[in-house]
């Protein structure tokens, strides 16, 4: 039957009874808006996380040795030389490794004390000069990073983060000295800003040669390493190589822990996807309720328009003509509701973006809830589908009306 006329009739009846139309569509509007908001937030969260991981280094593999394996008397161990050898052996998978020794100790400059500053002992490989990027993502702003000479000779030099450079040295740190647990270290380089340059943040750091850090800690072995795989794609294989090596040494899977950023990202992404799927399912309940609302109002509409149905039948409308008229009407109603829901969802996603940015103080390049095109297309499709599905029963009722009874109906 004529789609155009049914469509225009549906729009007309929506416009003539706005309140009723709004109430009819409310379930669909809320459901679709919820789906759009959830997908937008999920999408934004994923983008934000991916960005954070990229900053951190997506090729990063963390290795932690937690025991020795083979009983308490075991003397099995790995040292940095073993790790360097591993990188040399597999240049196709591993591009670098550095020990990563966390040090606890007060940092002083003059009379100022910096208690929240993190100090790490690393090797020269922690910084990749060709990419101008440290394994933890920072770039070098001025000066140089630690060199082979610094590390092998255990020189008391350090590279500091942006926060210290500003706070302790007013931006003029090169060549100056600070003390860590009483030992003096000369600043040879300053890293660029990575976080928000506050105390305890990613910018409140100091890097020193790892053996110096071990001395400060009084520890005899390195238990933490950072590897770089050659790319995101080789990350999984690189992880396998490292695990193989560690298993050969320790013969016990529980004595070490290897985790790649790519793997972690995948795990978090799939967790987020699951979470989103659950939330969307909950939102879909609202769509179901919306569909029932449409079915209800369509049943009322069929009763109200019994005489019209009789007239149309007397003029030659077949069952399918009447059926499609009411299905188109239901579909149009839910489609309009869907469009309103989509617009509402996008507006809400925008508002939420601003609220989250305000709360987290991340600024404009932080979290952004972006509606996905797929999300919009699917929720529009689903809302139309819901209308058609729930419109079918009333439409069929209308189609099966007896023309004589329908014509006589008041």
């Amino acid at each position, binding site marked *: *039957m*004529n789609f155009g*006329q049914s469509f225009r*009739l549906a729009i*007309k*009846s929506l416009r*003539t009874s706005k309140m009723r139309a709004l109430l009819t569509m409310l379930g669909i509007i809320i459901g679709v808006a919820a789906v759009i908001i959830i997908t937008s937030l999920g999408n934004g969260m994923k983008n934000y996380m991916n960005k954070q991981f990229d900053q951190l280094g997506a090729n990063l593999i963390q290795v932690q040795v937690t025991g020795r394996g083979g009983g308490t008397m075991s003397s099995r161990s790995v040292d940095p030389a073993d790790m360097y050898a591993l990188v040399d052996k597999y240049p196709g998978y591993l591009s670098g490794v550095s020990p990563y020794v966390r040090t606890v100790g007060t940092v002083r400059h003059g009379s100022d004390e910096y208690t929240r500053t993190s100090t790490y002992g690393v090797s020269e490989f922690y910084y990749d000069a060709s990419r101008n990027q440290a394994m933890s993502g920072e770039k070098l702003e001025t000066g140089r990073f630690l060199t082979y000479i610094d590390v092998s000779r255990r020189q008391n030099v350090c590279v500091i983060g942006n926060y210290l450079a500003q706070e302790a040295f007013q931006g003029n740190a090169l060549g100056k000295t600070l003390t860590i647990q009483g030992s003096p270290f000369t600043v040879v380089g300053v890293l660029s800003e990575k976080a928000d340059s506050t105390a305890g943040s990613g910018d409140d750091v100091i890097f020193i040669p790892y053996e110096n850090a071990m001395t400060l800690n009084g520890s005899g072995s390195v238990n933490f390493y950072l590897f770089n795989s050659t790319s995101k794609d080789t990350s999984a294989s690189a992880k396998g190589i490292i695990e193989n090596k560690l298993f050969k040494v320790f013969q016990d899977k529980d004595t070490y822990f290897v985790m790649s950023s790519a793997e972690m990202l995948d795990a978090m992404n799939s967790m987020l996807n699951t979470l989103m799927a659950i939330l969307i399912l909950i939102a879909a309940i609202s769509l179901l309720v919306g569909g029932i609302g449409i079915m209800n109002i369509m049943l009322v509409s069929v009763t109200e328009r019994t*005489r*019209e149905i*009789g*007239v*149309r*039948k*007397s*003029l*030659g*409308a*077949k*069952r*399918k*003509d009447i059926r499609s008229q009411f299905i188109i009407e239901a579909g149009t109603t839910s489609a309009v509701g869907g469009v309103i829901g989509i617009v509402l969802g996008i507006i809400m996603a925008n508002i939420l973006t601003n609220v989250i940015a305000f709360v987290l103080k991340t600024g404009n390049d932080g979290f952004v809830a972006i509606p996905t095109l797929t999300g919009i297309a699917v929720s529009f499709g689903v809302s139309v589908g819901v209308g058609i599905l729930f419109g079918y029963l009333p439409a069929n009722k209308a189609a099966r009306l007896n*023309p*004589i009874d329908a*014509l006589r109906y008041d």
Partner: protein
Amino acid sequence: MEHLIELRDVYKIYRMGEESVHALDGVSLAIDPGEFVAIVGSSGSGKSTAMNIIGCLDVPTSGTYHLGGIDVSTMEDDQQAEIRNKMLGFIFQQYNLIPKLTVQENVELPLLYAGVDAAQRHERALRALGRVGLAEKRKNLPSQLSGGQQQRVSIARALAGNPSVILADEPTGALDSRTGREVLTFLQQLNAEGDTVVLITHDNSIAVKAKRIIRLQDGKIIYDGNAHDPRAVVSAEEYQEILGEGEPT
């Protein structure tokens, strides 16, 4: 010659619990092209049932009904719809225009269901509206017209599909006597132009505008003939009384 409408021994029996009501009790009639026939009877006479069957809105319990040579007495819902669309034009007491559609859209409805394309629909609807003198009101909604005008729109709608039979069910029932007369004059004019008109009414003063009257009582035809015969306008008992002791023929 083949009749346009031919009912042969038609019964319509409704079951009301234990009882069965014979709404039509063996009705046979034939109407030829170009006739103007009024089917008359008081309420309960079976005239509405007759109109439903002639209008292909209902099927007889037994007997046959041929419309334009086609046996329509055993048709399914959708087949009947097609026959109504092609062969019948309805005029109702309450006009039954669809309030949300414009005058022109209302007139186009039968053409829409016949699958006529848009350009032809417009043209034929305008021509039909022209015949009832309402072409300039085509953009109006039915509620903006007077009762008489609305009834003329419904006549235009009945004409638009170019039907073989125009079936008018109490077409003047909702109109004042002057507009009622206008509508009747219009039906006579249509008949003069060659259209077959079947008028269903309880009102003798209206029925006599037709050329031929078929009078129903208790589901049976008690008179079928010239509209000016006195028997056409009274019940069997009344006719007896008029004749006094005389014999009814």
